[in-house]
């Protein structure tokens, strides 16, 4: 029997307090539906795609599940205005946002009854989002795969939890029941995982990508892009090593660096190009060693967390 209880489950009408993070080029309608069917919240990544692609993916998800799912909107996308409209028209229940400040869409989404959950990397941004009416925030630490901030999950989550009154979801470096239980102890009401869901059976990322994540060890990721102000964590490979080398050379211009990175995630996720691809993934990859159906991942993570939380009193005398 499922015992984990969390305000996030009520807010989002889900069974397990676990979100599958938006992942550009990877998290599509099929993966999102599988996660939602399994009792978590699946999320489609709108990334830089246009309105018709997103609409297609939303309909794909709806055809596979009647459970709630979400869409992740990257605010820097050239199509942000369009996709912000699509989620309203398609009555998507939950929107998460990344790469910026979603306040200009907030009233439109709220009046459509959408739950809005911005990803934040600092206390101040969390406070600002609460002020603008966010229903919850995802506090994402720098252990995560993808674009990251400076603060790590362990210090960030309790500080955000102290600063806001809305539910906090922890992300970054969480890959099993221990991570989920720890996040709840830090003051979060649930977690978002990206890297663990990268290797879900229903995840359509290129098999080479999955293989690399499954093989990765604890120290196999590297952060690049700090010089351009968009730090990104991914696996060490020819591409990321070359980028890291180029990044701080005085003769490398910002434009050159920008151009070097363009399309690299697509090359990894769609083509499985080991040399030129950017295999974004988090530090928790070392713990992720098996491809499993999304539903099994959810069940395993939550059952493990339940057992740990029930046994937590062993640490307290009397």
């Amino acid at each position, binding site marked *: 029997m499922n015992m984990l209880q969390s305000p996030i489950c009520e807010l989002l009408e889900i069974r397990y307090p676990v979100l599958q993070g938006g992942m550009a080029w990877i998290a599509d309608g099929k993966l999102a539906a599988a996660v939602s069917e399994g009792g978590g919240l699946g999320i489609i990544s709108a990334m830089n795609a246009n309105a018709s692609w997103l609409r297609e993916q939303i309909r794909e998800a709806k055809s596979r599940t009647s459970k709630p799912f979400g869409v992740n909107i990257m605010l820097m996308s050239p199509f942000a205005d369009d996709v912000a409209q699509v989620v309203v028209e398609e009555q998507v229940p939950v929107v998460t946002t990344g790469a910026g400040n979603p306040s200009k869409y907030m009233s439109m989404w709220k009046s459509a009854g959408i739950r809005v959950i911005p990803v934040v990397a600092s*206390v101040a941004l969390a406070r*600002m989002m609460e002020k603008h009416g966010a229903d919850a925030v995802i506090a994402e630490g720098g252990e995560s795969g993808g674009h990251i901030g*400076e603060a790590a999950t362990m210090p960030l989550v309790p500080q955000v939890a102290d600063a806001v009154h809305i539910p906090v979801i922890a992300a970054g470096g969480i890959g099993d029941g221990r991570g989920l239980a720890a996040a709840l102890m830090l003051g979060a009401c649930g977690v978002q995982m990206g890297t663990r869901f990268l290797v879900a059976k229903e995840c359509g990322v290129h098999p080479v990508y999955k293989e690399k994540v499954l093989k990765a060890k604890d120290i196999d990721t590297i952060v690049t892009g700090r010089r351009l102000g968009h730090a990104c964590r991914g696996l060490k490979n020819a591409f990321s090593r070359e980028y890291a080398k180029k990044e701080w050379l005085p003769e490398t211009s910002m434009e050159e660096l920008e151009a070097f990175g363009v399309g690299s995630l697509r090359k990894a996720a769609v083509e499985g190009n080991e040399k030129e691809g950017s295999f974004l993934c988090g530090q928790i990859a070392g713990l992720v060693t098996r491809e499993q159906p999304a539903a099994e991942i959810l069940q395993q993570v939550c059952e493990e967390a339940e057992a740990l939380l029930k046994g937590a009193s062993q640490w307290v005398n009397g």
Partner: protein
Amino acid sequence: MTDLERLEKIICEYKELEPGTLTPETTFQELELDSLDLVDMTMACEDEFGVSIELDDNLKTIADLLDLIRKD
């Protein structure tokens, strides 16, 4: 203290600058504040001035921020 002085104080403390080194025309880019820093400072200003500030893309200089503070 004028509003500008109060704002200057916040920014100088934030960036560990000597008071008097800023003008209304100083840009946040010159101050090397990234987007997270800017949000952080905006929230500090909200606390200091007791106002609600709407961040927008046109926010470039100290004078712009002062306008936003006074608009509320």
